[in-house]
């Protein structure tokens, strides 16, 4: 019971953060909610393996990245097309900002997008990203570099 109570605190504290990471990757509210549930359930089952070497936030983010990345890979064809026009859309009153649109993000591979979100939105170190996405640190760096290069092309 106390294990459940401890975990309940984690849910309260990190739910929105995990949801936001997933939502930035899926751009679909329903998927993001379902995947957030999956991530916490997975984390609860694996909690005995959490040794406290990383913070709970980093640990949960790793699980979220891995789970969402696998989900996106499984649904490669459909998910990217479901990006709402409202997501990343430009606001006329803020022309100086980088306004990413779905077509910009479509140019990125799933790996590139996952690395970009983990890096730019979550400030996750490459080492953690590599573990989460079952890839090497070098591959994560290359993917990040490629993603930035592709997006830079769009905006210059």
């Amino acid at each position, binding site marked *: 019971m106390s294990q*459940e109570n401890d*975990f*309940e605190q984690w*849910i*309260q504290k990190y*739910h*929105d953060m995990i*949801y*936001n990471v997933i*939502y*930035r990757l899926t*751009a679909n*509210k329903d998927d993001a*909610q379902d995947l*957030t*549930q999956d991530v*916490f*359930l997975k984390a*609860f*089952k694996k909690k005995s393996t959490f040794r406290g070497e990383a913070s709970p936030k980093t640990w949960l983010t790793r699980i979220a990245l891995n789970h969402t990345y696998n989900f996106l890979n499984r649904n490669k064809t459909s998910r990217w097309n479901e990006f709402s026009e*409202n*997501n*990343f*859309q430009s606001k006329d009153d803020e022309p100086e*900002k*980088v*306004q*990413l649109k779905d077509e910009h993000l479509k140019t990125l591979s799933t790996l590139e997008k996952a690395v970009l*979100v983990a*890096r*730019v*939105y979550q*400030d*996750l*170190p*490459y080492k953690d990203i590599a573990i989460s996405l079952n890839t090497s640190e070098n591959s994560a*760096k290359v993917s*990040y*570099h490629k993603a*930035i290069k592709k*997006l*830079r092309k769009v*905006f210059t």
Partner: protein
Amino acid sequence: MKCEDIQLSFAEILSNPENHKIETEHISTCDTCREELTFYKMMQASFQENFDSLSTEESLKNQSRILSKIRKNSFRKIQKYIISAAAVLVLLFGSIFNLKTSDSNDFITDDQWILVNDFYSEIATDINDDAILDYLTQSDDIDNLEELLISIN
């Protein structure tokens, strides 16, 4: 230090500039890195702002869904333990029972055992019977003991 290395480390540099003095100095003098850093910061802002976040109500709803799933999962786990324990007990008792019956099957059933006991106890009591002794002394055919016992009964 290469520009590329610095551009790969913007997250670390921004979160802890004190520990990245060499990098921050480089950025202040390098136009390319400064431009890349500006782009990075704008992207960061775009990621922060251009998504709808969950309302408190939606968030709490999803949290309670997670909790109920966890509780269901825990209940299932307990159920599994109970079923496994029951199965082990059934197997244990089953094997003990089977051992007992298979022992009996291998040699003799309980009923047969009672009969054998009776048979030998009869011999023991009747063996001293003078009639038997007489009969045995008169007859060399010890194989007729069974017939003798039947006749005594």
